[in-house]
């Protein structure tokens, strides 16, 4: 042959750069996306260690300190300390008390909790050196519960619900969408009409209708599962439709035809060629969908059909802010709203960057 002389690739990178690596390189250049990723990493780690970071347990009631304002932090001799507060009047109002401030200590012993769900533990990251002085970083609610601690415990519910929900609904969506798209025919027809049926009911109406099937008050664990199940049930339809569409178009792609021509089995074609090609969509969709679950829980708990007292969840905590007179007088009740906002914002930053990185696939 005449032209077998070196036919070298255009670029000569040191190592082969696979699609994932290219994806990662593009993503790393997006500052907002990386910021989002770091925020999420921080939020999820703190949430995992909620018992350790929180000074109190979520249900610790201090009736004497209803609507206690956020404890002001200060420095005393170069070390962190907090002010003490005096209570007077009815309804109670608080003022900073004269006199010495209370030092803040790290690694203090306090109420016992189970770390990561199995390690019995009573060490807390920080606490006031004087256990009589309350440490309400974000203030207290009506029952004198520490909002900061409740926020951390609540994050365990609010943050995990998104991850579990998205896993559930995307697996269902991929399974059903991939099946409908690849098999086609009447099962495709029936499944897609079902998707359309679910999608044509405005989300929250369907959520409430589904919710009503279950008794009004059930245990918090069951409730958690019910919420996840309902939210995923509604969400799988749209991802199934998208996956089906992708499968349909991928099925006609030449590299899939080539695999068929080689005699590759159907299952292998789906597993090796079609599903991996949907991964970048799935990752983007997953990231951008997590807020849907977080917000879904928030709305349900806010409307008293979700997580119930004394458990803590961000939506339930916002419920305390329902009374606008309270909110005006005790604005720290809106803190969970800030936490939701920060989380959703981080997910949007990351998801947006992922989408851009996935879009520029053409090399």
């Amino acid at each position, binding site marked *: 042959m005449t*032209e077998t*002389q070196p036919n070298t690739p255009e670029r000569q990178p040191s190592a082969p750069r696979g699609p994932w690596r290219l994806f990662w390189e593009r993503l790393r250049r997006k500052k907002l996306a990386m910021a989002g990723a770091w925020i999420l990493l921080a939020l999820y780690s703190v949430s995992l260690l909620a018992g350790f970071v929180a000074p109190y347990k979520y249900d610790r009631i201090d009736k004497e300190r209803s609507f206690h304002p956020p404890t002001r932090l200060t420095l005393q001799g170069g070390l962190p300390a907090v002010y003490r507060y005096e209570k007077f009047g009815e309804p109670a109002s608080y003022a900073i008390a004269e006199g010495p401030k209370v030092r803040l200590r790290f690694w203090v012993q306090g109420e016992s909790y189970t770390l990561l769900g199995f390690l019995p533990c009573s060490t807390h990251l920080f606490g006031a050196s004087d256990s009589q002085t309350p440490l309400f970083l974000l203030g207290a609610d009506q029952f004198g519960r520490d909002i900061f601690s409740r926020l951390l415990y609540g994050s365990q519910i609010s943050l995990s619900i998104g991850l579990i929900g998205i896993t559930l609904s995307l697996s269902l969506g991929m399974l059903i969408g991939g099946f409908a798209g690849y098999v086609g025919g009447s099962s495709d027809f029936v499944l897609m009409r079902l998707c359309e049926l679910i999608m044509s009911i405005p989300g929250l109406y369907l959520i409430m209708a589904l919710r009503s099937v279950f008794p009004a008050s059930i245990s918090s664990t069951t409730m958690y599962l019910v919420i996840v199940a309902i939210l995923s049930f509604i969400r799988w339809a749209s991802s199934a439709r998208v996956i089906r569409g992708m499968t349909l178009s991928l099925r006609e792609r030449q590299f899939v035809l080539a695999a068929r021509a080689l005699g590759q089995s159907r299952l292998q074609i789906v597993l090796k060629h079609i599903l991996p090609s949907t991964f970048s969509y799935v990752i983007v969709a997953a990231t951008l969908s997590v807020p849907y679950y977080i917000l879904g829980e928030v709305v349900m708990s806010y409307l008293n059909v979700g997580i119930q007292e004394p458990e803590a969840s961000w939506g339930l905590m916002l419920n305390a802010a329902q009374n606008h007179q309270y909110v005006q007088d005790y604005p720290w009740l809106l803190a969970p709203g800030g936490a939701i906002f920060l989380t959703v914002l981080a997910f949007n930053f990351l998801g947006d960057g992922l989408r851009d990185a996935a879009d520029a696939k053409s090399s």
Partner: protein
Amino acid sequence: MSPTPDSNTNFSSAPLLEVCGLQLDFLKDGQALRAVDDVSFELKAGESICLVGESGCGKSVTALSVARLVPSPPARYVGGQIRVNGKNVFEMSPKELQQIRGGVVSYIFQEPGASLNPVFRVGDQILESLKLHRPASATREEVVQLLKLVGIPAPEARIHDYPHQLSGGMQQRIMIAMALASHPRLLIADEPTTALDVTIQAQIIELLKDLRQRIGMSLLLITHNFGIVGDLADRVVVMYAGQIVELAASATLLARPLHPYTRALMNSVPKLGGESDRLTAIPGNVPNLGSFPKGCRFHPRCPKARAECSESVPELREVEPGHWVRCPFWMS
């Protein structure tokens, strides 16, 4: 030292279009990649020139630059001038540029389907051109007249069609009608037949040939097909990797190409009814933007390359009257 047409051709003396030392970069990931490097040629009124080359050689960018249609960024003009009717397009105000576009220079593109606006009726799109440059004749009758000129059957009915209702060949005819509506002096056709079938391609080439004779406009044709050159061009410019490698009257160049690239390119295409059993292939790949070789850009693929070819860029020299070649060893 811009190459000029044969002295014996009787075109009027003032060039309609002069491209002098055009240099253009594309910015990609913070890097400036040279896409067009020192391209010079001129086009007299009534003359027809073909720009020939493979993908990424800079032919389309050069052609689009004439009316400054390359979006910048990502493009950036680094040097050179393009003069239309003696005036540099890089120094024109937006208003002047709008008058040049369509008024003096009209374009047709490779994909007629993508080049027509899908949401407007074709008649209205032609009418729009008329309104811009010949408002006095912006009438339905004139549109019908133009459609007749480009050979569209039943033009009265077609003006109410949307582009997607027409076939590729008809769409390209609409594009031509739209380009001609303003009575331009120069028609730039960027691969006008590449997306079309052979029999339709023949129709469009025949139409362009016929129009040139009847209207007497200049033509700048971009193509990668030497077959079309003989049909339509007075002169040919061959480009490779952003540079002109050869420039000559088309009959001369087709009969006796001098640059190794031109020769290799012409030989690598099978000829209809040809006898050869084997094609003479050009080894290697067309270089990508930003990875042009040093020295003569063709040397890694050139069968006649010598050591010095990789050192310095050879100059484009006039080796015979009107025949310019960028290769010092053109005689061998």
